[in-house]
């Protein structure tokens, strides 16, 4: 695969590390609810089709990015920097 890094341009995926589902809802840092943390850490939508996922450009700018990719065709629809896009899911709607 080749991923268009927003900072560095089109690069082979071997320059990146995979970070998994980017649409998981991370509880607030001070949330003490075991169920919510458990869901966040362990449960996955795991779609067959469009998947928003984290990658990190470890052999480049080291930025974490969010890639929208089809898990069946591997086609990449969009890439953006993860900065500010996560938290309580702001900036990312569920597919």
């Amino acid at each position: 695969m080749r991923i268009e890094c927003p900072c560095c341009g089109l690069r082979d995926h071997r320059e990146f590390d995979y970070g998994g589902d980017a649409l998981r809802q991370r509880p607030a840092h001070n949330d003490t609810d075991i169920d919510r943390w458990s869901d966040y850490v362990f449960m996955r939508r795991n779609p067959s089709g469009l998947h928003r996922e984290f990658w990190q450009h470890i052999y480049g700018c080291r930025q974490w990015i969010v890639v929208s990719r089809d898990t069946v065709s591997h086609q990449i629809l969009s890439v953006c920097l993860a900065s500010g896009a996560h938290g309580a899911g702001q900036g990312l709607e569920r597919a």
Partner: protein
Amino acid sequence: MADASTRLGGYGRIDHGKPVSFTFNGRKMTGRAGDTLASALLANGIRLVARSFKYHRPRGIYAMGVDEPNALVTLNTGARTEPNTQATTVYLYEGLSARSQNCWPSLGFDAMSINDKFSRFLAAGFYYKTFMGPTRKSWMFYEHFIRKAAGMGEATTLDDPDFYEKVHGFCDVMVVGGGPAGLSAAVNAARAGACVVLVEQSPDLGGGLLNMPAGGKADRWIAKQVAFLREAQNVRILNRCSVFGSYDHGSFGLVERLQDHVFPPQKAVLRQRMWTMRARRTILATGALERPIVFGGNDLPGVMLASAARGYLNHFSVLAGRKVVVFTNNDSAYLTASDMAQAGAAVTLVDARPISPSVACARAEKSGVTVRSGHAVAQASGRKRITSVKIAQFDCENGTARDPGKVMQCDLLCLSGGWNPTLHLLWQHGGKPVFDDALATFVPGATIEDGFSVAGSANGRYSTLDCVLDGQAKGLEAAQACGFDLPDGSDDYPALDLTDGWETQLLPVWEVCDSAGKSQKKAFVDLQHDVSVSDLALAHREGYVSAEHLKRYTTLGMASDQGKTANVIALALLAKHRGQTIPEVGFTTFRPPFTPVAVGALAGHETGPNIEPRRHTPMRQWHLDNGAKFIETGIWDRAWYYPKPGEDIEAAYIREARELRKSVGVVDVSTLGKIDVQGPDAAEFLNRVYVNGWSKLPVGKARYGVMLREDGMVFDDGTTTRLSEHHYFMTVTTAGAGAVMSYLEFLLQTCWSDLKVEVTSATDQWAAVAVSGPKTRDLLSSIDSDIDFSNEALPFMGAAEGTMAGLPVRAIRITFTGELGYEIYTPAGFGEALQEAIAAAGSAHDLLMLGIEAFGALRVEKGHVAGSEITGRTTLDDLGLARMGSTNKHHIGQVLARREALTSSDRQQFVGLRPVDPKAVIKGGSILSEPDETPKGHGLGYVTAMAFSPVVGSTIGLGLLSGGRARIGSTVNVVDTVDDTIIPAHVTTPHFYDPEGEKARA
């Protein structure tokens, strides 16, 4: 016919003036420069080349290229041995040696050909129904013989003397295939200005045109295209290069055979080069492969694809037979018949179609060919080669040969059952084949994968002119898709018209049955694997009706040729059995590689010692000069121990560990992960990632911290030093450095972007030594430095920046050994100088060089946790560190660490172990079990680390023990099933040495 030379003068594209000698089965033979092994064997009158996989039937040369199912040989000897090599794809070189495989005692007389006599007992899948008794172990007995009988060639066990390299390529347009369509596509894309790579698997460009008589219009046209492409600055031609696989986003794997056509020299050569090519557009001009027609005896030596026979004549100047029968269902084989007749063979052409194409037929008859339309070859006969065929009227309604046929002597039978476009690269990548009824084969669909286009006969175009025009159009289209175009007013580039198109449509004929409509015996679909039509029928009868089941049950298409001549026929026969159309039956998945690729080429340089880089600390040379033995620890090479004369590792590390507690020692800890943390919110950041608190850490002080994973397990540990108000210097474990860094970046970039903190990896920027032992202060004070190492100025966990021996340093008073100690950091470039300065001063202080073996032993004595306890399955409490966890703030992993199973009292906890018998040796990995029970199951835990402790006077261990802290003071058994020992041991705290930590504070 005598096995005389069949080489003709005045034909072909080989160099008649350059003889090349080679051996086949030990016999010396001569070929010509430009020959393949197959053409040279044919020229030497060799017809029997190989034995088949299962029935050991005699087999000859069947095809002319990568589709060859039969003529597999073992090439070369010794370390360069290559089994299962298609004789048709090996270009002859001086001294080549080849031998037949899978036969004993000889190719001519193969004892295993007895299988052929008993083939009915060895039908498809017979082995699933038997070999199951008398006992359940019996299979191992049968299997021994089956394995010996299976396999093909024999592999070498020697190392490959040659080497391989890898290259990354990028282009606008990649054209795969250098035939008329590919050349035209490449020329047009290049004219438009695109960066073009043209890949051709054979040495010469021209593709199918090279099967035409040499010296004609086609050769002139090829020469002109090649000249243009060689001139053009924006074109790279890769010949002897195969595109073996297509991968995501326009990536392709290519293997370029650089030295396979020259005599293996004594020295190692760069044998093959693997390319990873990224193309914006890819044009498949990969041509089409001829397919045969199935009937009884269709596998005998002397049966050959019609296009191959023509190619052997026109390219290699070999007339493969003198009495030739050509059996076809389409127009293309007429060219074979005409050319062979003109070369002097007596040729009979049998066309299954009722009416022959008039022009082609007239041309053939003019050349002396006898044409018999409406007929079929019903049977081929002969023992080790074909000697006759039965020709009969063909009933094309039922696909049967009418009785009585007529037997005709022959020494070569050429077959053409139609053409299959070579679209493996498209279909490997998920493209769906579409069945074309007129061509009776699979073609690319109306919409194909993004980035691909298909040109020429791969696209179902069968005249040279159509191929050229299609290639030109696709070449321009691809260039345009990349933003290029022909300059306005560009002329059309000259096409090539050989008026060789098909006049009449192909008649689908897959199999010729007998007059009763039954399949004949010994009618093979997959030649290499001996899969016959009766095997297909049996599989169907037994319910293996899907295409994949058929393939797997009969092994059809799974041989080393991947069924290139067999697959479409098999689908057609399956469709017939199922009473469905071919597209309804579907097809099996295409898998890379298109042609087999050497493991060496895929491995490239990054194998053996280069499989992963070795990381060295800046002081490596110093360690080497001072007698260190090294050990690899993950990605790093580290100084392991420094033996005195006569010492082994055991003696050396125990000495080093003992001496350190008396004097002073230095160990290279440059491998520690180091992360610079800066920003106004740095303290808050540390509060969140570490279990313990950081808000109150003053400037100039260090603190030990532990991080958890989000699931509550211990992640990593280390010290972090506050260098200034907003600047912290974090150290993490050697092994965890990369993962911690990525995780901190993840938190800051995705979760906590409101925190004003930057993290930077500084692992490579800083060299570090840990100096410790009671005499440390004496040693350091003797080095010229502006740092005051006194207890008052630099107390335990204090940090200072300054210079030592003129080098900039950070000194942090922390210790892993439990003695008075300092970690001294200096920029990596000064690492060796720092080491030398300390060593120079050390000579007056009995300075000890400490390897990581002794360093590890000292940590076991001290009872610090390390990688062997931070297993990813241990919690803070398991490791006895629960008191570190701050309760008045939130930290990562805090919540999930509370899960019920992580807080139960029987969890395995970190303890020390001391053998009751001081002479007993506890080994790492041993299982801990109840003292009064026979050990069983998973026991109570295990020994995570051990060392000989000079302080304790015996081996000691660290362990994870169920309910361990409550067991301190009791004993457990340390069970080793390898040495078969059970050693009673006292359960102790992990801290064997100075548990109160007074030494470090001294």
